[in-house]
């Protein structure tokens, strides 16, 4: 379903980024990068005191003609960005949410690994498998 999935660290550098059409990867990298601005805007909209009440799922960040970009941010300011093909209209909001939830769970599993240093690129095979499962459905 997803065309590109990215995990961005707190300092706004990618921990993990993968896209399906591998030939046009740069375009997706750029898209994710620009979406970060929107993410920052959304999370700064809520006041500092309400940080706990801030919704983790940010929803549609911005649509283009080709695809839509969804965002999700964790409490530790790690951002997940999913780029979905616009032609895939069957995708509902809750499905996106479930994808983000799965991403978040896999990410916490990666964090649980004591050999993983926060800030390192994610190289976990389990994480890769999960992401592939999410992306393969695009076909």
């Amino acid at each position, binding site marked *: 379903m997803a065309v590109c999935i990215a995990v961005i660290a707190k300092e706004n550098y990618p921990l993990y980024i993968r896209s399906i059409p591998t030939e046009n990867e740069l375009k997706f990298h750029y898209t994710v990068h620009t979406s970060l601005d929107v993410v920052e805007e959304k999370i700064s909209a809520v006041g500092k005191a309400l940080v706990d009440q801030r919704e983790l799922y940010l929803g549609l960040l911005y649509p283009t003609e080709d695809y839509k970009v969804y965002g999700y941010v964790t409490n530790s300011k790690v951002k997940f960005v999913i780029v979905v093909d616009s032609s895939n209209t069957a995708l509902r909001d809750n499905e996106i949410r479930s994808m983000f939830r799965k991403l978040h769970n896999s990410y916490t599993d990666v964090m*649980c690994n*004591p*050999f993983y240093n926060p800030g390192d690129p994610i190289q976990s095979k389990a994480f890769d498998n999960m992401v592939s499962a999410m992306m393969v459905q695009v076909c």
Partner: protein
Amino acid sequence: MDQGPGTVSGGGFISLSENEQRCYSDLYTLCQADSSEKLAASKVRELFRASQLPADTLHQVTELCGAKRLGYFGTGQFYVALKLLAAAQSGFPVRLESIKSEMPLPRFVGMKNDAEVLRYPNHSQNTESQGHQLGKPPMTIARPSLDRNSLKRTESLGDKQEPRSPPPSPLRSPPNSPSSLSYQDKPLSYCYRKQWNSTEHLTASCESKHPSRPLLQQQVSSPSNYGSKSSLAHSSVTQALSVERRAEGSADNHDDPWRITEEQRDYYTMQFKSLQPDLSSLISGSVAKNFFTKSKLSIPELSHIWELSDVDCDGALTLPEFCAAFHLIVARKNGYSLPEKLPQTLQPAFLQIDAVSPKTKRDGVFLGSYSELVPSCQEREPAHSEQWEAINELPTTREPLIVFEDESGTAPQEINTVESTHPPLSDKSTPKQEPRIDSCMSAFSPKRNPSFKDTSAEHTPLENTPAAKTDPPPELEHQVKSRTRQRSYSSTSIDDAMKKVEEPPTPPPRPQKTHSRASSLDLNTIFQQSSQGFKGGWLPPPALPPRPLAAQIPHFVSNTETPSQQKPVRKLNFADFSKFSEEEENAAKNEVQGQLGKAAGSSEESSPLKKDILPAQPPLKPIRRKYRPESQNLDSQEPTLPLPPPSSSSAPGTKPHPPLQKQSSRQKRAIQTAIRKNKEANAVLARLNSELQQQFKEAHLDRIALEAQLDQLRPVSYL
């Protein structure tokens, strides 16, 4: 074992280069059957055969080196033989003369690995069995692991030496498949020891067919940087052999490299115990990370292994998970590529069913060795291996745990640190331990238990720790306190602790109950301090002879009242003061006098002063009472008491007064020091309070944040 240059009984002194020396000593150790100088003939024969020299050459070599004559291979003979083999392989005639010169190292078929070993040609693709290849990667990987585990293994396994009886016979086993060979490799290599690996391969190849002998040989040659570990190697070798023999006993699992044998399981359990004495508890991620990092596998591989083995993804390893992880590491070290998915035989559920309690005897042995080492760990000797350093790190990891987990528990900690030298606290700590022990036993956690094990240095079994805790010498008192502190999760124990702990610091507040008046408080505390047992608003002991004071008071009062007449007063003062100087007894009285003196000297308005003084000194009630009649008497005696000017009154007063004033000043000083002490105590407690409040706030904020995250992570039914 003589590692020096080989001396040959028949051929004089031959010099060996450093490489040669190392290599030969390795080979020597590998061929060593027992602690005697003689080498196992069979092994030597195999070694020679592996050199791929024709049989008659070998005979020649044997003859020349003197073994034939002696009937066995000693050190010298062996070295000479090796050198002769090298000579033969390089094409030189097998003569003693030829070995006098510099020679390349003898080549044994199947050697490879390592820069040093590069001399040995790679005959991997030869007729040798597939197991040969499997042997290769372990060597590369196993090589660096020498130092890491040598120390570790030595102590724990040193006592497991068994005589290294000729291995070939009992170890014959039919299977020839590569997996079987590698399987044999695997259980044996879990010692993480190169020498051990080599021995194991040695024996493994002994029992398998000849083609695998090169496997043996390559293992034999690889530990060329043996160094001083030969003795350790020997012990480990014997132990490994025994282990391997036992491992081979279970002959049903040869085909599954992912199956853990009993032997391995016991070993893993022992290792688990060394990290975490409670077998049913968890090993935390950081502890496991340190431990597994010692295996010298790369971090991504270790990360992958962790992913595979930590099935519940909680960042900690249970015993089955730990066994699985360990097994995967062993497999990886033996050359198996890591699977993508955890094999079924390594699943925790599977392993849990298979769980066998470790043999008590071995437990005793290991624990014994462990307990020997732990005191050294406690002393933080860096000489010990990193395993103990991991344990050493635990105290440091405990500190943040204390702050984070148990904010109320830190109160006793800090109070304890403040009053750490307080004698009654040692008594209190022991009763504290009981509730702590209970709470600890019931609610085990990985964080608590490692520190638990860590601080109970002398007592490895968990059951002994209560006893240990009750017997700690005073120097362990602090550790005990910190340990028990960490466990105090139950509110009751915390309350007990708080109450018990707070008893020592409470004396300062006590006077407050008794007196609300500020100025009298000082006197009160002084009285209490002096009398040590006063409770409540005590009046000064009635033993105070009030008369002199009363006499003085009325004198002053009357002085103030009648300022006009001075001289007679002066005389009177003299007279009165003499009385005072004789009768000065009570410090409080003197202090009162001092105060009165001050009051009188400070201003000439005595009536307000009188009133101030009197109400300000309720403890002086008896004095006052006596004062009145005295004053009346005095007044009657001297109708006019001219108030001398303050200076004059104080001037004559100074002479008889010095002793009184000294006392009063002493009293003042005492009061002041008492005040200071109380203020300091107050400040300390106030600081403590603020710090605790801060910690509490932080913990509360953390809790809120975590709860919020938890809410977020909970599946949201959203449509």
